């Protein structure tokens, strides 16, 4: 049994009383959590000792909602919010936001988008005016539409110069089942097909109060802020939200190998993925710790030790997870000089197999737990980080109570837990592999890897 000593509580906090418990609780600040009659969930975190305020609006309108052939419409819609409203041109929006020393952030995720503004609290009213205006009254003007469309078409081309992005786009398409919007990538054809009426329709369908969460953190008075939010967002009309394509991970599907030919490369990019437990799984914490040991722990991980520190085959190798409430993906990525492609690939697989077969040591697990125990609070330095952590966790079906017990839950995990989760999920044969490379230069090595399909890097990954 692990005994954690409660040695000292030395932090002076401006409000709250602490009890020293033999637990590692992360005490999140109190949240006023209410839902307006139109369905908009509002979370208010008042912290008056600060000089700043952060607004966030999470909308469930993302890649997961894009019809086949209309890839890009979610990002297009989010970008159009800044291009004009009923009362502001795009230039006025940019000037008004800059005038209060702020900026608008748009963070698209596979299943939602978070629109945010961080600003000095002396400008909170002006900030909320702009924030609500762009969210509720976008005008979708043609000049903004043309500019965003041009940007997105350029991005499609520029992404073809980024080898990691190429690998990732192909990897998604290989992993997700046919017809799943999450597997698909923006293409020239899909962007060109998007008209203003499509963007407007997407907005009207998904940008609804009952499909959104608003979070405000910083220097304000809760009652007054609630009034101001109600005044601005209270008349936002709710609507029925269409059901999404249901992602169904197949944990037993045999992995595929895809080679993406890009002439001229002096390195090959190796990308692997497979399904992992989702955030509602009872194995969530076990799996995250397993990933830390595999490749998530950077220089404390096995992959970095074997492929970089000992092998000298790469500058970077790592694994990371994309975890959602109904599916999860484990990703491994690296790049290596052409002549080491086969050796690096085999070494990665061998590390995976070794970990799955023999498991982790007590020592490795303790280090992983220690890292996570210390790192979680370090990730919450600013109010914006707190806001984003809360919102993304809610989307993974975690409550704030779950968040406060996160460290405890990690520290409950045993070596047996980690080893059994790896045996169950970490199977070398179910990894999909994408290699982006100059095919002619590495063909003999690819032939040793196994049967593969080959596509040109300019091709639509899902065609």
């Amino acid at each position: 049994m692990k005994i954690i000593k409660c040695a000292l509580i030395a932090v002076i906090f401006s409000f709250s009383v602490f009890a020293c418990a033999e637990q590692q609780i992360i005490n999140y600040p109190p949240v006023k959590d209410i839902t307006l009659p139109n369905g908009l969930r509002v979370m208010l975190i008042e912290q008056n000792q600060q000089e700043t305020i952060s607004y966030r609006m999470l909308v469930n309108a993302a890649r997961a909602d894009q019809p086949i052939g209309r890839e890009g419409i979610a990002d297009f819609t989010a970008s159009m919010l800044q291009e004009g409203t009923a009362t502001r041109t795009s230039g006025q929006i940019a000037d008004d936001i800059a005038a209060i020393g702020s900026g608008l952030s748009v963070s698209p995720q596979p299943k939602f988008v978070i629109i945010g503004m961080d600003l000095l609290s002396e400008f909170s009213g002006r900030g909320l005016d702009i924030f609500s205006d762009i969210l509720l009254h976008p005008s979708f003007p043609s000049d903004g539409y043309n500019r965003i469309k041009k940007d997105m078409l350029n991005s499609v081309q520029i992404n073809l110069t980024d080898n990691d992005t190429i690998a990732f786009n192909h990897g998604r398409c290989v992993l997700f089942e046919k017809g799943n919007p999450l597997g698909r990538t923006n293409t020239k054809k899909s962007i060109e097909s998007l008209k203003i009426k499509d963007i407007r329709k997407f907005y009207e369908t998904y940008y609804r109060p009952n499909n959104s969460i608003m979070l405000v953190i910083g220097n304000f008075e809760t009652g007054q802020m609630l009034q101001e939010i109600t005044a601005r967002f209270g008349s936002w009309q709710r609507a029925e939200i269409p059901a999404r394509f249901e992602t169904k991970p197949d944990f037993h599907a045999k992995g595929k190998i895809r080679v993406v030919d890009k002439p001229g490369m002096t390195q090959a990019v190796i990308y692997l993925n497979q399904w992992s437990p989702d955030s509602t799984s009872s194995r969530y914490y076990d799996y995250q710790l397993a990933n830390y040991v595999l490749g998530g722990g950077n220089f404390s991980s096995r992959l970095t030790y074997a492929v970089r520190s000992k092998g000298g085959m790469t500058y970077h190798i790592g694994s990371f997870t994309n975890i959602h409430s109904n599916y999860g993906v484990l990703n491994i990525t690296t790049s290596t000089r052409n002549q080491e492609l086969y050796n690096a690939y085999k070494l990665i697989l061998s590390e995976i197999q070794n970990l799955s077969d023999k498991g982790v040591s007590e020592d490795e697990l303790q280090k992983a737990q220690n890292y996570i125990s210390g790192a979680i609070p370090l990730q919450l330095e600013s109010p914006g980080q707190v806001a984003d952590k809360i919102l993304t966790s809610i989307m993974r079906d975690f409550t704030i109570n779950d968040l406060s017990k996160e460290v405890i839950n990690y520290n409950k995990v045993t070596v047996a837990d980690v080893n059994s989760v790896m045996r169950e999920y970490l199977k070398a044969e179910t990894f999909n592999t994408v290699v982006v490379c100059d095919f002619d230069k590495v063909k003999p090595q690819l032939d040793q890897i196994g049967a593969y399909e080959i596509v040109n890097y300019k091709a639509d990954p899902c065609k």
Partner: protein
Amino acid sequence: MKLIPKLIIIVLLFFVSSDFVLAEQEKIVSHTLNNGLKVLILEKDSMPVVSVQVWYHVGSIDEPNGLKGIAHLFEHMMFRGSKNFGPQEHFQLINAAGGNCNAYTSDERTVYYERVPADKLDLVLRLEADRMVWLKLDQNVLDTERQVVMEEYRMRVDNDPIGSIQRDVRMFLFANNPFEFGPIGKMEDIANFTVEDCQKFYNTYYAPNNATLVIVGDVKADEAIKMVEERFGFITPSNVPKRASVSLSPEQAAAVNKSTTELPVPVSLLTFYTAGARDEDRPALEVLLYGLVDGKSSRIWKTLVKDTKLAEYFTGEYIEGADNGIVIFAAAHLPSLSKKVEKTIWDELEKIKKSGLDDNEFEKIRNQIRSGNIFEKYHVNQLASTIGYSEVVRGDYELFYQQDKEIENVTQEDIIRVTNRYFNRDNVRTVYFEPREKNFLASLAGFFKSIFK
């Protein structure tokens, strides 16, 4: 099996809140050890976290010919073991304490940084002191790390179009100058570094009198100084050569330079030379650049991308050293439009030379900078970086306190003077990048735009 004691978390209850903002009375404590190590400490108890940064006053401009890239390779070697810690143990111990660490190399400095729970300060100091004095260098480790650095070169330069552009720009603008290759160095030099080269570099530059130690976080300055004295006080100083004065000027480069790129459209760069971070015009230049190139409310972006639609993308970057700097205006545009793009930029600069910025722009820029400074203070790493930058690059840590005031004091006359000083035809060099793969439709569109716009 080596037993790793379970991390005892001293502070069990983290409250995500509290006084994030730096109070005015909080002051940086400066202390210099007898061996010359300068220590700057800022107490900030809003979170039980501490950031530790060691700024070595050595970078790629200190490398002799034949050793281009050794400062950066050395940054890697510093994680490969010292007398009391094994290879990569530095990373592992910091991670096991719940912290993160890394390093970077620039033209003028090499910085190592850690962010850990505050009660782990002594661990970090032990690790940093150990590798300052007892780094282990051997052939096997060097050979492995050499391969890692060469992979980094392939990844960041050979296989990245932006990295390739950066390499070409340096070669055009800084030919035969210590800034020519930058921290990433030269592949042929990296392939030939010896253990003796590394040892000499280490003995010369990794010394307490060639470093600044910055500590920011939930610590008591007097206690931290005691720890630093204990860990670093015994290290002997070395005879560090005075850095030769290096100047960058447009006379060192051709007026017009051309290369190719993997990017799908042409890229035009206008580069202007400045006097760097220690020059008295630095605050005015900062305000001016906010007005010209910062975001979608800036003058050049609005004109070039939004109004005339001559450019697909536009960005302005300022790369600053202590006594030199380069402002780069970079536009990606359709073929045949480079002259129009340049003219549009010059027209905007001429307007500023005539009338300066308007009152709204001044207010906007001041709010942007003030807001940025306040948000920065939530993060101990960023605070430590700004303090280190103020001391090492700008020359005085006290400038950390002057940031807002410096900006407030910038006048219209300053803006006009600085625009005339730097943004003139004698102080510019251009670099053009043409796509290697020609796109007929883009060329056609560019041709028509060049006629009708």
